């Protein structure tokens, strides 16, 4: 993982506050766990039926019946609980999930999120993403700032099928930390070594800038 991505993940980890119940989506969000302090009072949830995720285990120590939603062999901690898929999403939909971190194909300036379907190319189904995006109390996106072709992922309007409307609160990329506000995207922080112009050029919608110096992460 590049230094910029690693710093993005470390920065996102600082959003997690004591007492929270947090679901970390597959991919980059999962890595946030490596940046949490051992004594941090937090409960990690995975939608396939576990609250209190413990460390990921190497294959030779794995329990074949204990995985997270991404298929990684995880472990429990004192106070973990197992439950079925209905209870797992009951927790999500009823407001007991304080935060989720998700990947994105596109985020619109009004907070719309598209992260599950590229028609004609990639339609695996949304899994749990729709409920996580629509119902977590705070939805953070972790993503590269642009796609593989260099096109911006932060845009005025989503072109892909939506996961949920107006759901995204904050976006962490390898270039910036950006909030979704009633006035659209608001730049909060910028990655070390980049200029404001770099970020503006890589963003497909207007950016509100902070007053004074822009914090660096």
């Amino acid at each position, binding site marked *: 993982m590049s230094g910029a991505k690693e710093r993005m993940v470390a920065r996102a980890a600082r959003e997690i506050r004591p007492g929270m119940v947090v679901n970390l989506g597959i991919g980059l969000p999962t890595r946030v766990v490596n940046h949490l302090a051992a004594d941090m*009072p937090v409960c990690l949830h995975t939608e396939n039926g576990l609250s*209190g995720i413990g460390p990921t285990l190497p294959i030779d120590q794995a329990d074949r019946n204990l995985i997270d939603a991404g298929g990684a062999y995880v472990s429990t901690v004192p*106070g973990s609980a197992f*439950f079925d898929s209905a209870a797992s999403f*009951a927790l999500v939909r009823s407001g*007991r999930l304080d935060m989720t971190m998700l990947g994105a194909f596109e985020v619109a300036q009004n907070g719309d999120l598209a992260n599950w379907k590229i028609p004609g190319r990639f339609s695996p189904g949304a899994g749990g993403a729709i409920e996580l995006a629509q119902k977590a109390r705070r939805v953070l996106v972790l993503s590269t700032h642009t796609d593989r072709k260099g096109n911006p992922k932060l845009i005025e309007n989503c072109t892909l099928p939506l996961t949920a409307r107006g759901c995204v609160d904050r976006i962490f990329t390898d270039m910036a930390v950006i909030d979704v506000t009633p006035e659209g995207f608001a730049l909060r922080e910028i990655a070390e070594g980049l200029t404001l112009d770099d970020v503006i050029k890589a963003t497909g919608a207007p950016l509100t800038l902070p007053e004074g110096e822009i914090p660096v992460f």
Partner: protein
Amino acid sequence: MKLPDKTVPMAEAVARVQDGATVMLGGFGVPGTPFLLIQELLRQGARDLTIVKNDANETGMGVDHLLAEGRVAKLITTHIGLNARAIEMMNDGRIEVEFCAQGILAERIRAGGAGLQAIVTDIGLDTELANGKAKVEVDGKPAMIETALRADAAFIHAAKADPFGNLGYAATARNFNPLMAMAADLVIAEAETVLPLGGLTPDEVHTPGPFVDHVVELAELSEEYDIVRR
């Protein structure tokens, strides 16, 4: 990471319940009724309450104390046949009573806890319980919409808990407790025993900790929890 600690003194937890609140109470008859949380609610004086409970307990027990002190405006329930005061207050118009079929009360509470807006059922379609409820057709068959129930607070009685709020219930004291423990903005569990984290194995947990806000350990049980000698 370690899991957060949610243990608090009972008075502090119950103080968050305001006048006019909707409060769910676990239990089917005696088993699972959170008698000591109800006593504390009584002591702190909240009034104008809407109570959601399977039954109204018996005279002199649990819900009946709240009724006797005039704290209850409305009761959402399935059967109050063992509480003459509840029936009398209903007949006199001193409390409003909304009856549900027992399993539909359970499902409405569960739906609230599961973040659903409603369930669709044919139970009671041919009875007066269908009055005033929206009718829909599903696959060409008549049914009705029973809206989800949520509460400002739920009082839960558990046999065992850990500090994170994982709960285990004893025998038929389970009943409405795990459903209500999902369905309120403020979930307070009284527990006969609070074990250290890990004291309940992940498979022993009936209610997962993320649903629970406060855990209160009971120093000892009151007589109300005892076997009823008839």
